[in-house]
């Protein structure tokens, strides 16, 4: 009886695990499959296979500029996000002060607030700022980057803070006793020690920014598109495997980023 009960339990566990994995992977598999269909209207079974939709991406100016904009914005937002998140994490992880717990939660807020709400509020904020200062903010690349930085910060703060709490302060004190001032200590000892958290935070921030649609919709100027917006606009008129092909490229880009990152820091250890 006991052995039977255990067997049933194990089968059930494996069954649920595989079902969940299939559920997660299904869309990726179908999108990838679809990208190679020969016919224009996606229907099953495929009438044949072709690579022409990948060619169609290059011919579509919106996709090309969208990709380039998304890349620029994501890179800039990630870098600025790190510049803010690393010092913020250092203080949050090491100093207890009035409101430090609140501030910590506050920095994670962009994960919780719906993208549309964030987009609207930043949109309104940028209009008001533009009226007040006369600076061309709304619709500029800088305005878009500023918004996306908010998307990056929760990831970087959370992951850098996590790696800081595991760090032995004595190593930093040892460096100082050996003659390193605070700056040298930070760059030679602290930063290398928290590098996995920094890299992982940057990666997740980058991916979040690169794939963001809701906030970008509010903040792009006329004629400017990010890749997700370009995909949305394309879908308004056509449903053909070009969109699937774009998605495949995006999946590949992120997968490659993760694999390269994993070579330097074991992501499974940080996240």
């Amino acid at each position, binding site marked *: 009886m006991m052995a039977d009960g255990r067997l049933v339990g194990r089968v059930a566990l494996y069954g649920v695990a595989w079902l969940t994995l299939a559920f997660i992977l299904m869309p990726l598999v179908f999108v990838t499959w679809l990208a190679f269909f020969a016919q224009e209207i996606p229907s099953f079974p495929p009438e044949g296979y072709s690579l022409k939709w990948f060619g169609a991406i290059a011919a579509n100016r919106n996709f090309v500029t969208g990709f380039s904009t998304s890349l620029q914005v994501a890179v800039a937002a990630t870098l600025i996000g790190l510049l803010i998140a690393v010092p913020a994490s250092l203080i949050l992880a090491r100093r207890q002060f009035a409101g430090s717990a609140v501030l910590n939660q506050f920095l994670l807020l962009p994960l919780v607030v719906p993208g549309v709400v964030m987009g609207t509020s930043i949109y309104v904020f940028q209009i008001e700022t533009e009226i007040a200062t006369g600076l061309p903010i709304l619709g500029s690349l800088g305005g878009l980057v500023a918004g996306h930085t908010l998307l990056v910060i929760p990831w970087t703060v959370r992951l850098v803070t996590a790696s800081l709490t595991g760090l032995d302060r*004595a*190593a930093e*004190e*040892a460096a*100082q*006793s*050996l*003659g390193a*001032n605070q700056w040298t200590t930070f760059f030679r000892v602290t930063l290398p020690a928290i590098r996995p958290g920094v890299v992982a935070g940057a990666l997740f921030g980058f991916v979040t920014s690169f794939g963001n649609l809701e906030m970008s919709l509010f903040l792009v100027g006329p004629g400017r598109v990010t890749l997700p917006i370009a995909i949305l606009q394309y879908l308004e008129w056509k449903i053909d495997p070009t969109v699937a092909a774009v998605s495949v490229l995006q999946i590949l880009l992120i997968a490659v980023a993760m694999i390269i990152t994993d070579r330097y820091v074991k992501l499974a250890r940080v996240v």
Partner: protein
Amino acid sequence: MASLTLDALTKRYGDNVVVKSVSLAVRDGEFLVLLGPSGCGKTTTLRMIAGFVPPSGGSMRIGDKDITTLPPWKRNAGLVFQSYALFPHMTVNENVGFGLDMRKVDRAETTARVAEALRLVRLEGFGERYPRQLSGGQQQRVALARALVIRPDVLLLDEPLSNLDAKLRLEVRLEIRALQQQLGLTTVMVTHDQEEALTMADRLVVMSDGAVRQVGTQSDLYERPADLFVADFVGRSTMISGTVAGAGAFRSDGGLMLSCQLSSAEGAATIALRPERLTLGAAAQGLANHATGKVTFVSYLGALLDVHVRLNDTDHVVVQIPNRSDGHVPAVGDMIEVGWPASACLVFPREVA
């Protein structure tokens, strides 16, 4: 190397005084150990010397130089931590060379001095390894080499052996002491392990509640403890409370009349007895103090036996005797004679709590 002087060093956190006006003079080349139970302020004192904790009052000097307000990186103090605190992303060579790098020593000299430091701690050939590839004892020796290579004015050791297993601890203890003597290093070590303190130090400082209780050599502390706390903390003592009844006379709370070499004024007092100074059996009869008691417990320590003897309803003593094959081993319940000379009684006035 140089002397180290602490003058009325004090640390306060709000109303809580954790180090109370500590003054010490560590001589050039001396190994001084700060000993005390946890929370006695010894670690805070060491961290003030290292520069990580700003003092609330008092001053510190290395040689003639006032270091009270210098940041840690300008003090030239070599520091070894309980947790080793090696840089995990650097090789052993890079770890040891770090301090020289900070001092802009050129590459050829760095290589030579790092090799020399690793030779001193018997880790030649380990230079290319990473800390995680070394055992705890080896890591601690790297930490020591890293602190020595900068030729520090003072060497500061913060419970350096606590993370090592018992056998290794003995080995590294002797190694550190030998190196310290060979190089003539002015050293301050913090520990709560009195055996470690007794075997390594030239002089010891016993601290409790942020204050220095006694400064002295091993025998000063053991033979002539300044107060009841030191008598209890350094070595083992059994206590008999009672009153000093006159010159050389002490009446225990249990009614025993004892003769002592008095150092205490009349009034409530406590006698501390070292267990190995007491004698059992017939030999006890000729001593200044003797009484008959009942054996309540015998603990077998291998080379030694601890015999607990109840003398009356309130007084009891622990006697430590060598475990000789020809000797009689007392059994629980035996009535036995216990004696000790007047000189074995350390008398202290009762501390007002």
